[in-house]
């Protein structure tokens, strides 16, 4: 079986699966169960200087698909609501009892150098193998000048990162908030501040639903609700993009990435690693299904690697990165056309109506004498958009076939119809 050991910012882990700083890593009892289930590491629930925060009830709202499967959770929870020394003692005990597992300490504080440094040092003394700065919490804490209040201002990201670097001799992970316009701005600030790695994403500002009887957002606390932080598989696409943006920025090439956001299965994890992440963190999937899901994450990732001939994670880490490009670098001469396999078609008509109403009117229906329907693609109208293939309920029925047009690759900047096209002479590489 493939070797799943990984190393992120100098922290060695038996596998790339860590629990993100959140309720699953709130107490010794949880983390111990997680380690027993096979998780490689845990980023402890965020701590700060005492007194601890107080939480409200209820705390969670969910967004479901029409089968009732939870796509995302929204929460209004704050950070650890237990005294700092209780957290520190439990971390110390676990470090002793589970020497082969990773514990990263997560902290936040107001903009006070003393506070940041003091908590960082206490965590280091408890034995954590790295420190994560929580600059992302998008509710409650930001109203007190912490979390995303710091994470949304580049200079403060740099400053707090530097404070922690100065305070401890441990790998430093700066955890970024996605509630910004350009993820590269805080990533570059973290890099300047001396971060060894960035962890992303934290939760996204959201109102998950409105209770139409009580006329208030869910979760409703007494009569009102607040926006919360959104996470779970629904946020994975956003996280993938942000991770890719950082991974392919040459200025950040020595900044490692601990990827977070919607990771639920082994293939989700593999995708983040393929984009360049060194390891991954999981919160919602564990909250929904329990720690046992790590079993299939480990098993499935190992089997995938065996099938592909990857011995270690490094063998495929970042392999997809070079294939993430700007739109301007796409080959405009590449063409595909949909092809419907009539033998496996169940005649549902989904492809036709999708194309007819909202795409390019390229799917024809012929009705036979017996009432059976035959769906075919008119190549002249098909623009190769892929919509029909996505809505088709039969796997493999609609295939996108490459058109062998013999044309050389051509990008928009080089395109003859581009009014801003640079002179071909000056474009040459």
């Amino acid at each position, binding site marked *: 079986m493939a070797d799943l050991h990984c190393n992120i910012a100098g922290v060695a882990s038996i596998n790339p699966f860590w629990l993100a700083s959140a309720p699953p890593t709130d107490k010794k009892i949880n983390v111990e169960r997680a380690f027993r289930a096979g998780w490689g590491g845990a980023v402890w629930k965020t701590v700060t200087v005492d007194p601890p925060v107080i939480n409200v009830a209820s705390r969670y709202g969910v967004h479901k698909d029409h*089968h009732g499967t939870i796509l995302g959770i929204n929460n209004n929870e704050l950070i650890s609501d237990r005294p700092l020394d209780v957290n520190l003692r439990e971390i110390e005990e676990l470090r002793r009892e589970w020497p082969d597992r990773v514990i990263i300490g997560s902290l936040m504080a107001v903009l006070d150098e003393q506070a940041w440094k003091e908590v960082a040092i206490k965590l280091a003394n408890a034995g954590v193998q790295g420190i994560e700065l929580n600059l992302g919490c998008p509710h409650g804490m930001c109203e007190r000048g912490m979390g995303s209040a710091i994470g949304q201002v580049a200079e403060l990201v740099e400053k707090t990162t530097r404070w922690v670097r100065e305070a401890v001799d441990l790998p430093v992970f700066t955890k970024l908030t996605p509630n910004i316009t350009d993820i590269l701005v805080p990533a570059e600030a973290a890099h300047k501040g001396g971060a060894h790695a960035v962890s992303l994403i934290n939760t996204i500002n959201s109102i998950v639903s409105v209770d139409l009887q009580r006329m208030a957002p869910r979760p409703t606390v007494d009569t009102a609700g607040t926006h919360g932080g959104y996470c779970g598989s629904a946020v994975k696409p956003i996280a993938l993009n942000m991770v890719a943006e950082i991974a392919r920025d040459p200025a950040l090439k020595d900044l490692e990435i601990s990827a977070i956001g919607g990771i639920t299965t082994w293939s989700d994890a593999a995708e983040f690693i393929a984009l360049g992440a060194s390891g991954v963190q999981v919160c919602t999937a564990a909250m929904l299904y*329990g720690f046992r899901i790590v*079993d299939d994450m480990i098993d*499935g990732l190992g089997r995938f690697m065996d099938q592909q001939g990857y011995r270690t994670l490094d063998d495929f880490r970042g392999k997809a990165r070079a294939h993430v490009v700007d739109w301007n670098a796409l080959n405009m001469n590449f063409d595909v056309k949909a092809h419907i396999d009539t033998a496996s078609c169940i005649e549902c008509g989904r492809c036709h109506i999708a194309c007819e109403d909202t795409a390019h009117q390229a799917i024809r229906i012929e009705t036979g004498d017996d009432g059976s329907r035959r769906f075919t693609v008119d190549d002249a109208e098909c623009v190769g958009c892929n919509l029909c293939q996505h809505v088709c309920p039969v796997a493999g029925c609609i295939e996108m076939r490459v058109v062998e047009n013999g044309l050389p690759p051509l990008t928009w900047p080089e395109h003859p119809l581009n009014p801003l096209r640079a002179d071909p002479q000056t474009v040459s590489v």
Partner: protein
Amino acid sequence: MSKQLVVSHAGAGLSPCDIADNFADLHPPLDRGAAAAEASRCLYCYDAPCMNACPTHIDIPGFIHQIATDNALGAAQRILNENIMGGTCARACPTEILCEGACVVNKTEGAPVKIGQLQRFAVDRLLDAPSPHPFGRAPASGRRMAVVGAGPAGLSFAHRAAMLGHDVDVYEARPKAGGLNEYGLATYKMVDDFAQREVAFLLGIGGIALHSGKMLGRDIHLDDLAREYDAVFLALGLGGAARLDVPGEELSGVGDALGFISRLRQEADKSAVAVGGQVVVIGGGNTAIDAAMQARCLGAASVTLAYRRGPEQMGATAWEQDLARLNGIAIRTWAQPVAIEGDGHVERVRFAVTELVDGRLAATGETFVLPADQVLVAVGQQMVRTGLDGLRADGAKLWVDDDYQTSRPGIFAGGDCIRRGDDLTVQAVEDGKQAAVRVDARLRAKGRD
């Protein structure tokens, strides 16, 4: 949806092609899309009721989750971890009274997740993939074990013992291994020579030598085995068919159902097996249903299953009774055969109508006659005790302690030949697995003394 056979109408026989169709898969296998859709119905229960209803305790939510994540090989390994004959069990288990009967989705949707079919989907992927055997062996223990009987119990024991580092010799009286997987399960449950493919897969672990045509009490003897091996595991099943003990049982056209089924199982061209036009099956268990169904598959125009007690007492599950009825098999309950009549060949069976009087079966005095040109007797199997002298009995079976040890130290037993759980393939597999683990623990403890 239950299987519907092509049936024969009075006088007209079935074509070999119809017969072959009738013997095709009872439940056609799921393809990848159907398996993914079915897997998505699973609620991924914790400490799931289905798991506890499975005698081998397969982690069912775990393997279904793996099918949903497109990790079918991981799912298969998880199944085989607990049940090395997960492939046969997926095909043959009466899931309606085991895992699927316990599935909580029955309560929310009125029908369970198709656990058996998902299990088959996963295990078939693994068996079809040209991959190395998925289990390794512990360092060689230097110990040797003998297994008598290569049915599910014996092979499950052998596989687990090999995994634990022991070398195993398996002695089997019949020419082929597999026990009732090969000679007893209904043809339409085990298409495409699955029993032999599974045996080959199981032996792929190494360390197991199969000696077929070797019968205990004739070619090999308990005393010798006890002397030569560190442990002996008896997995003899229930060899002999019980008799009816009514006049006329010796007439031609009267035979035991198991013999009929095993002939069918061994025949490549099923249409070569003779069947009557009016078949009467006597018995109320799964074997009776299987025999009746398979007679119908062959084209018998009329098949009646006669059972001496009521429908509630029948060993066959409700699902199997429905399957039989759906396929035109008449089920007559409260009917006790009293004589089989005919001139050389069977022509009719005479029955007494029965009832329960104070909980005991009694004849009402009424009788009736069913015309028949073939009678299949399925009134249970009895243990053959040849070669087992000196072992304590438990009713008609072998006595064992909690660790599967018989009254003779070092001799263990499991499967149908002991009294534990139901006489089902899955229980036999569990017995074999557990017995191997216990034997291993005992030997290792002894080694330390």
